């Protein structure tokens, strides 16, 4: 059993709408690099971080192709974080609020390595056993 500490994060912003999303992923990346187990609950619009049908796009206004645009998708960033944690023998438990994704029609096509859950699961499984918790609320 790893003795690494566990940090838990609650994310609420939908991706592509707030700099909070980028900052949250940067903090989670830093936690994994520093050897922490990480729990995440994606609540409200944040369940879209891991929606698998996100696609990079071209920009016809600028005349750039998909390759030139290099449009980042949060599903790929989260998948990379899950892989990075696994590569270090750490846990990244990415829980998606089931009711939130039901409301938004995002309950299908979620990426592997994430799971649906409830606010109770967040508290019992992620907050209580964690060494520290940060809530990043939406505005």
């Amino acid at each position: 059993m790893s003795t690494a500490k566990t940090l838990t994060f609650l994310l609420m912003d939908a991706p592509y709408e707030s700099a909070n999303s980028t900052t949250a992923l940067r903090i989670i990346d830093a936690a994994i690099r520093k050897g922490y187990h990480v729990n995440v609950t994606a609540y409200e619009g944040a369940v879209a971080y891991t929606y698998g049908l996100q696609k990079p796009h071209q920009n016809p206004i600028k005349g750039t192709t998909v390759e030139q645009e290099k449009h980042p998708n949060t599903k790929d960033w989260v998948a990379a974080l899950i892989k990075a944690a696994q590569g270090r023998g750490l846990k990244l438990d990415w829980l998606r609020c089931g009711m939130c994704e039901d409301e938004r029609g995002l309950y299908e096509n979620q990426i592997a390595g994430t799971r649906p859950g409830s606010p109770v699961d967040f508290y019992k499984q992620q907050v209580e056993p964690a060494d520290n918790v940060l809530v990043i609320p939406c505005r």
Partner: protein
Amino acid sequence: MAKYLLIESRDPYEWNDVSYFYDLAHGLAREGHDVTLFLVQNGVLPARKSPRSGRLADLAQGGVKIAADDFSLRERGIAVEALAPGVRPSKIDAVVDLMGEGARALWH
């Protein structure tokens, strides 16, 4: 004495309630707690010497450690040399370090 990590993501020119968060940092430090105010996103805007940065200098004099996310500074073209007194650039890793040390973390 407890350790606190207050993360300010908002621009005080846009959000008046930022001053309340500064007040919280000041009050906690005044009561003897170890307080870090971590500026990120548009929260770094007053870190550049300006009429609003005086408040940050006051907080620093009051014992609050003030860190500004280096990535957010670069995004906004704020050079380290332009930072107000009492503000130091910091990597986002500092948030993780403080959380790992048990700091009570609040995001605004």
